[in-house]
């Protein structure tokens, strides 16, 4: 019994010892080349002159009235932008008690207050002016058609925008809206910055930060009448922004960004020995601008590149898993710059290595779509000397010292 017991315990000890061995992985200093186990990590850098083909641009991926933000920009940039907002009609009569559907005549409107969500702004003093627009204003209003309403005669308020971000409130006197009652309390307004170098991004309905209007009024609440003060509000019916049209692109020009948002599609052809057999550590798409970036003041554009799930032309879906908004991905384009645009596409190429079923085509877009007035224009692959280039830094497979 003792012998058998001792044997079983020893067997268990052996197996535990065999399975339980662990150790540290530590680092000791190296002394190459003598003590380098292998010294074959040799990055190579190559510029591919004809890697881009079948490139095209298409507009309309996102319209201004469906954008995630409302842009308001001064006249100093290439494009001035003005915001248009129309609110749902405020009630003509007021329901004093929530439990009583009886409504009362509105005796007077003391004031209106417009609430905006400020998402981003340029530094310095920013003067924001509010103008009244006709009740019939809709999303099809153009910049030129709206210009007559952005005059001093139609200005209803002007404020100095103080917070960097957050809620901005603008008080409007009903005296400045003489057709308020006749318009059945349906309010349409236009917003513009009077500071030429200013640039604002306001929240939109689509982003969940739409504008709303508050009304401060007086009604009779009882018989005989007792005048009480009440308030109600209405959300925006639609919000959009309008801007001057840019000149049409020239032949051979591609364009990205702006509003309605434009995207460029490109096919990238690199040797398979590089994409599939090496480790790409950095890849850059080089675009030659056809002129200074057409941008609003201080409006830096971010460009991102996405792989496509299928290549079916302008309506090609972006591969969801390939969404690449990593901080070092893509590129940034400052306003008025005419320097070569450099867009990091490293993650794109590494994705193609891991997923060979994806087409070797990608889309370039401004981020977010219709989130910038800036339109980037650059030469396409049809231009013999100014076509896009791709620079790739890669590391060939490692030999691991097995000769």
């Amino acid at each position: 019994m003792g012998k058998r017991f001792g044997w079983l315990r020893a067997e268990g000890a052996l197996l535990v010892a065999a399975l339980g061995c662990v150790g540290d992985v530590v680092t000791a200093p190296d002394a190459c080349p003598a003590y380098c186990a292998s010294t074959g990590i040799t990055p190579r850098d190559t510029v591919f002159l004809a890697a881009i083909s079948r490139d095209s641009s298409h507009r309309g991926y996102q319209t201004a009235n469906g954008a995630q933000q409302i842009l308001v920009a001064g006249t100093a940039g290439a494009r001035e932008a003005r915001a248009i907002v129309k609110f749902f009609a405020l009630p003509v009569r007021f329901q004093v008690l929530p439990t009583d559907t009886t409504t009362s005549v509105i005796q007077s409107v003391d004031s209106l207050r417009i609430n905006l969500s400020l998402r981003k702004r340029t530094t310095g003093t920013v003067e924001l002016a509010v103008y009244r627009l006709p009740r019939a204003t809709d999303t099809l209003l153009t910049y030129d058609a709206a210009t007559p309403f952005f005059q001093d005669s139609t200005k209803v308020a002007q404020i100095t925008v103080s917070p960097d971000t957050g809620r901005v409130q603008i008080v409007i006197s009903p005296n400045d809206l003489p057709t308020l009652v006749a318009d059945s309390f349906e309010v349409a307004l236009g917003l513009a910055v009077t500071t030429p170098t200013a640039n604002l991004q306001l929240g939109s309905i689509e982003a969940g930060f739409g504008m709303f209007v508050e009304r401060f009024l007086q009604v009779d609440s009882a018989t005989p009448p007792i005048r009480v003060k009440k308030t109600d509000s209405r959300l925006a019916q639609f919000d959009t922004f309008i801007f001057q049209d840019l000149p049409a692109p020239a032949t051979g020009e591609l364009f990205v960004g702006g509003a309605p948002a434009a995207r460029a599609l490109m096919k990238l052809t690199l040797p398979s020995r590089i994409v599939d057999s090496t480790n790409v550590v950095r890849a850059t798409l080089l675009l030659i601008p056809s002129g200074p970036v057409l941008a609003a003041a201080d409006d830096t554009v971010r460009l991102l590149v996405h792989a496509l799930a299928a290549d079916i032309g302008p309506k090609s879906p972006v591969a969801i898993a390939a969404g690449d908004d990593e901080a070092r991905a893509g590129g940034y384009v400052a306003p008025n710059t005419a320097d070569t645009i450099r867009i990091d596409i490293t993650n794109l190429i590494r994705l193609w290595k891991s997923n060979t079923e994806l087409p070797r085509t990608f889309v370039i877009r401004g981020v977010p779509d219709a989130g910038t007035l800036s339109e980037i224009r650059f030469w396409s692959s049809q231009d013999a000397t100014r076509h896009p280039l791709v620079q790739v830094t890669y590391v060939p497979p490692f030999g691991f010292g097995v000769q």
Partner: protein
Amino acid sequence: MMRRAMLVIAALLGVAVPVEAQNSGYGILGIGFPTRPTSVRGRALGDGIAATDYQSALNPGALGLAENLTVAVGVSQEYRNLTLVGVETGGLQQVRFPYAVLSGRLGRTRLAYSLGFFEYAERTFDLSSTDTVTLRGAPVIVTDRNGSAGAVVDGRGALAWSLNAKWSLGTAVHVLGGSARLTARRAFSDSSYRPYVETSDAAFSGFGWSIGVLATPSAKFRAGLAARVDGRLSRSVDRVPGTDISLPMSVTGGFEARLATAARFSASGSWRSWSKAAAGAEAGTQAFDTWEAGAGLELGGVPRSTRFPIRLGARYATLPFSATMEQPHELNLTAGTRIRFAESHAQFDFTVERIMREGGNVTERVWHFILGLELLP
């Protein structure tokens, strides 16, 4: 009993793989750092009993001393300070599982056998270096990290025939195997460059053969002599064959003498033709023939003496691989003991080694603790 022993050995062979660790700085070159296939007791005696120890894998003829079934395994822990080309690093350590062996005699015949594995060469390291390279016209600092985790293992099957009480002859077949996980990494100081990582698996294979003789002219003296020939070690990375490397021929001889009832002295020496490996080693690696000599003294541990034997040993050896024309060498000072339990059907052998290695721009100081478990069912 036999079946149980076989099951245990089979389980051990299935899981016994070298563990991740930082091995000797000399293990970066050649096939790695050659490991001594000696038992825990043998190490405690400075490898003095290498030629006469049936639980070591040097002399198959020594199996003639095996009478009962025994199973022996060892586990070791190392603590190392390493100076590599003037840069000192301390606090390195690793755990290893260097051997497992089953031996016994077939019934009451004159035939003894042994099955087991020993570590042939350790190839585990993790090195980092920093450099500056020019990429796209700008200097970029890069940090490289090259690593290997694995070893070459010697699976041995041996038979010995006891001609009579004084002579036994043995032979063994050695199957070399093993693998290593290779890693190469590079990180760039400029985050625009993504890190580079590549891993691969190296596999090793080879064969060897050894013969040996053990002479026991009296109860107080025995001597052993053995020779081993290993072929070529085939290496491949991701199944792509690389250059084979020639393995050495080795000759081992030694003796063990009982000076008194409770005092035993042993000494042995070995020579190996490692210079053959130069052709297949990495460029710039020097390979030298090696020789080693060790002696040990064991006091007590027999009836009517101390229960726990005192084992002392010393060993000097030259090492095969170097990055310079200077051949490295090592000096081992050892001590150990044994504890029996379970009515002497099991025992722990414990050895501590102080190893001092120098040469080839590398200096090492190692504390090596080895624990062996032997079962005698």
